[in-house]
């Protein structure tokens, strides 16, 4: 029992470490090639992201949206549903929360935040219900449908932000700010870390409980591991697929709300810096496990927050972060030797 548990943890650890090590090795080579000392640079990244309370706060702040998008991705991936549409649901949920946050009456007071969160979750869920239903009932390929929906979400939100929700004061591409009562409180001012981070942790904890201790969560894993087996033991595959998509939409919508109400206090062009895709990298890196995803989110949060500073103080372009992210994504699904890393390859025709 303990042996199996130990082996499981060892495998998970390798699954996490290998993509990171490969990415760091490649970036070290890249840094050497441009005449920078990789050890100094990595040291600088480390001290810039964890060196002081303020820096830790900004790392966690950057990790916040990733907690949500990673969980939203993992809910689907573990059920074998290839949902790449978290980015779109994040945008839709974020806009819904912000619009509610400035258009609902301000004297709702403390009730404003839960209302906005609920609205965002509902919009996110509705957005991903569609591809879920299409997959479950009509077998419409979810990769393509969610990919298309990402572009549609980006177009809809951009049009609305430049149209009916445009702020009259601030000019282009932004909505008015949300009411002060709708803002998520800052945890350690003046740092931007806000209570959305705590909501993210709560979502992560809820995910952990859901996957292990609820029938629906366990059935989701069965469907992901072996659809035929799940069907034979009486699990409804269509219902499991739709549930996974709905939950993914709820979490992604909440993530958008946290970003809108906690970080930006409004919706603007470039609301999501590809959080849906980085979240996918985090989910893959953490192999859909809560602890792994927490570590992954903090890692990418650290890279994002330190990357900006590094760019200011040295000649190293911020794009290095994207290089690392891309390599992590590819190597998180690569199979080397006896270790099976990541999810099963799925060849489609």
């Amino acid at each position, binding site marked *: 029992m303990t042996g199996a548990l130990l082996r499981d943890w060892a495998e998970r650890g390798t699954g996490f470490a290998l993509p990171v090590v490969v990415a760091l090795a490649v970036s070290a080579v890249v840094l050497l090639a441009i005449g920078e000392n990789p050890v100094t640079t990595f040291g600088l990244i480390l001290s810039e992201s964890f060196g002081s309370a303020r820096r830790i706060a900004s790392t966690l702040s950057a990790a916040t949206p990733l907690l949500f998008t990673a969980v939203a991705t993992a809910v689907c991936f573990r059920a074998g549903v290839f949902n*790449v549409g978290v980015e779109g649901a994040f945008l839709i949920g974020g806009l819904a929360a912000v619009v509610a946050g400035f258009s609902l009456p301000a004297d709702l007071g403390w009730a404003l935040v839960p209302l906005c969160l609920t609205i965002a979750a509902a919009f996110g869920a509705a957005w991903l219900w569609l591809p879920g239903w299409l997959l479950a009932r009509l077998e419409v390929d979810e*990769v393509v449908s969610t990919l298309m929906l990402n572009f549609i979400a980006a177009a809809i939100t951009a049009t609305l932000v430049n149209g009916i929700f445009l702020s009259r004061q601030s000019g282009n591409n932004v909505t008015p700010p949300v009411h002060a009562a709708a803002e998520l409180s800052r945890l350690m001012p003046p740092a931007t870390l806000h209570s959305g981070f705590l909501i993210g942790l709560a979502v992560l904890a809820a995910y952990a409980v859901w996957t292990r201790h609820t029938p629906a969560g366990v059935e989701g894993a069965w469907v992901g591991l072996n659809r035929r087996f799940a069907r034979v033991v009486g699990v409804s595959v269509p219902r499991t697929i739709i549930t996974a998509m709905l939950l993914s939409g709820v979490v992604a919508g909440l993530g958008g709300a946290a970003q809108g109400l906690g970080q930006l206090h409004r919706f603007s062009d470039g609301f999501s810096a590809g959080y849906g895709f980085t979240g996918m990298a985090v989910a893959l890196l953490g192999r859909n496990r809560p602890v792994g995803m927490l570590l992954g989110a903090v890692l990418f949060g650290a890279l994002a927050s330190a990357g900006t500073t590094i760019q200011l103080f040295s000649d190293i372009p911020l794009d290095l972060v*994207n290089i690392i992210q891309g390599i*992590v994504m590819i190597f998180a699904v690569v199979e080397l030797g006896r270790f099976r890393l990541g999810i099963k390859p799925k060849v489609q025709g």
Partner: protein
Amino acid sequence: MIAQILAAAVILTTPILLAAIGGLVNRQAGIVNIALEAKMLVGAYVAVVVSSVSGSWELAVLAAALAGTLIGWLLGLSITRLGANVIIAGLGLNVLAAGALGFVMAITYGSSGTLRLPDMVLLPRVLPQGVEGLPLVGLALAGLDPLTVLAWATVAALPFLLGSTRIGLWLRATGNAAPVVRAVGLRPALIQDAATAFAGFFAALAGAHLALYSIGIFNEGMTAGRGFIALAAFYFGRNLPWPTAAACLLFGFLDAAQIRMQTLGLPPGLIGALPYVMVLVILVLSQIRSQRSQR
């Protein structure tokens, strides 16, 4: 005015079509190539740099195509040899390519976002400019460049290549029944590698066309999701060359008409999203039809 829209549509179709050709061949071999965008971007960048350095559009196009082929081949290897998931590896490559290009651009040229180089040689026009005088199609004919001609020639040749040649048969067999291919002594992995390299070749040509048709600059956002529009096109065209080309032409027309529809008061962003909506609708309709026929 119609002649102008037609001419613009033909040219705007070309990059989508080139990328879609690569994607459809790749998908016939059983791999959904989601990284067309990455290879277009690399192709555009290489084309701009080589065109400026060598002063030759032929060399620029060739270099771009080779770069795309190499990246496509590597992507193929990661999928067939290392068992990487097709979708994730593709999305990862998109992120990686954008990051790597941004990095290289910042280091070598100290510029971020846009690269403008001296002595650019652009794509030539194929026909003598006298054809411009022809009614309706004159402008479109005068604007034809070698890559546009290549794209449509490939579309014309593909039904034969896929349907009646040995390689085409291997390719389709690999996509439909890999075990059968293995049973007759061929290696499906090798065929998939080749198909993915082929997709890289054509996607990079698409990028080269974007960069070298008229402006001769590189911009990080210049592909603007065309790799995904191409994906939409070959889903739309169910992997068949002519229907896919028709879808590309439709999307090219939408792109060309976008600017004019804007003056009619329609929001440009929503028109830009039309191809994606159409793909969703078509996917749903075709699934409904295939489920009906099964019953």
